[in-house]
């Protein structure tokens, strides 16, 4: 054996665990609680939209407008929008944390998820709260039956 020794094959231990806000516990709780609600919300949604009546064939503007004429479905969709988007976004965050190894890439993805989630929640909320079932300029045939004739 000479003075020359092969470099130690033992890799040093991974860098210290990153600290920061502990999203994990609340995220974890949230996934489960929202999941429970989502089962009801989504299954109800799917049932009304795809199964009851004529299924997907029945969907059009008038169908939506008809649903939104009562606050019931507005609240329903509103809750579904928030719960599902945040649930999905948090889930995607987990995925990104798992698989995006490069810190920069990870950042980019996480920001993208965050921004798109906020935008979509705002957009969706706006649509639901300000929905006008009888917008001007639509052919009467495309409007729900309760709209006053234009």
């Amino acid at each position, binding site marked *: *054996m*000479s*003075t*020359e*020794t*092969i470099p*130690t*094959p*033992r890799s040093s231990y991974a860098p210290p665990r990153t600290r920061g806000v502990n999203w994990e516990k609340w995220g974890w709780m949230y996934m489960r609680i929202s999941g429970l609600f989502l089962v009801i919300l989504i299954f109800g949604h799917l049932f009304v939209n795809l199964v009851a009546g004529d299924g997907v064939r029945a969907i059009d503007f008038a169908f939506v407008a008809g649903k939104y004429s009562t606050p019931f479905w507005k609240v329903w969709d509103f809750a579904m929008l928030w719960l599902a988007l945040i649930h999905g976004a948090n889930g995607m965050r987990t995925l990104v944390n798992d698989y995006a190894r490069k810190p920069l890439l990870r950042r980019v993805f996480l920001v993208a998820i965050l921004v798109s989630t906020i935008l979509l929640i705002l957009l969706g909320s706006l649509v639901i709260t300000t929905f006008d079932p009888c917008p001007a300029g639509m052919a009467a045939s495309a409007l729900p039956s309760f709209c006053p004739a234009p």
Partner: protein
Amino acid sequence: MADMIEDGTVIDGVHYHQHDIVIVGAGGAGMRAAIEAGPNARTAVVSKLYPTRSHTGAAQGGMAAALANVEEDNWEWHTYDTVKGGDYLVDQDAAEILAKEAIDAVLDLENMGLPFNRTADGKIDQRRFGGHTREHGAAPVRRACYAADRTGHMILQTLFQNCVKLGINFFNEYYVLDMVMAEVDGKKQPAGVVAYELATGDLHVFQAKAVIFATGGFGKIYKTTSNAHTLTGDGVGIIWRKGLPLEDMEFYQFHPTGLAGLGILLSEAARGEGAILRNASGERFMERYTPTLKDLAPRDIVARSMALEIREGRGAGPNKDYLYLDITHLEPAVIDEKLPDITEFARTYLGVEPYTEPVPVLPTAHYAMGGIPTNTNAEVLQSNTEIVPGLYAAGECACVSVHGSNRLGTNSLLDINVFGKRAGINASEYVKTAPWVPLPENPAKGIRDLLDQVRSGDGTERIAVIRKELQDSMDRNAQIFRTEESLKEVTELIETLRARYKNIQIQDKGKRYNTDLLEAIELGFLLDLAEVVVYSARSRHESRGGHMREDYPKRDDENFLVHTMAYLTGDPESAEAGEHIRLDWKPVVITNYPPMERKY
């Protein structure tokens, strides 16, 4: 003189380290010592295995201590049982210490967090074990503290946990291959050890004021053994090669209940919980041999009785060559609670369902009663009376001697804790005042030469072949029953194997994780130790404890109530054992219990 070389220096590829105390081996004894030494002195533990891989973890049944938690008991009875169990070859002063300090040893472990099984009122539960009795042999007593059937596992884990807590400095997968000795005032003293780093193939010299050996047993001189592949007696071998004596090497314990054909141990705890040994016709044969203790007689007696049953044709199976351990009469709930692991071994390895079928068993090589002689302070002896300053040994590699010619079950886990602790305390005391022993020039040279020689060897012999021949022959000739004839046969074989060992070739010439190389070195130790075992056995013309000479079937207190001390002298390379082994005798310390006939 190289004298002192600063910690962290690398000279000529050899790394130098400096610690007050270096502990060789991270089993129960080594870590128990580290827990005492670590907080008091700069301590390093050098182990060829990750600490939790040590074979202490395989111990199952329990650890003896006269806590008297479940029935009346006291340390004096425990001492008596230990002395009698060891067939009066036990040093009685040491046995007293063992039994007395047992209680604190168990409580220490409990305080460190060991999860012992509990009694209904929340105290440490105790169970029966072979040879442990009340009132000097009147009836079995519940003395073994236990954690299901993984007591050793829990001891090893608990000690490791506490080492983590104390931040003990471990060097894992470093094989210590040599001890460096130097003369101080005309006396030989340890200056450190030389270790081989498995990961890189680098050599390390650990300079130390005190060295504690805790390298465990050497069961791999036998083929059928409960011992791990790594129990090759390196520590004992190193001491031997330094010309220091080895004590009572002929006494090797065969545990009655190894899984037939495999040697995997089924703890005596099974019999402690009521399991029964049966022969082919289902007879509870131990009633014939030891009417009082029956299946719970000491191991030497049970193993011998089993061998006789087989010899007399009452063995079971197609070749009538094994016996049964029967626990079918125990409640499955009890089995699951108290013996979960060993029942699983039977299921996994033999495909036998212990709830409903008896398990095929055979005696298996288990425990070395002999080893590095120490006094009760765990200081290593260089003669019958004189110690080597700064050198300590504890655990199975040491011989205090608390086990005499036959160890009682549960006394070894006790031994490693009591004497491991003593070694740690005494070494820390010693290094407070002791000066550094200067390192000789080029301390790693001897080992480097040896390694180079093995690595570059281009002989025709394979180590696996030599090892197998050794182990087969040891099983055949130096097992429970021995005769001059059988011992002579194995002596001659060892002689040729030693010669053939010089002509080996290994295939892995690399540096990283070269286990091929280390197996070759380990085989060297095995050959050395087997030779000492057989040589000592040939010279003891009596039968006592684990050493049963058919040609000398009686115990002979007149001539052999003495410890064997074997020394390496002359030319270690000489062929015949007699040319390089010198035997001497050391008196047995007897305090309260004069030798009597041993009846159970």
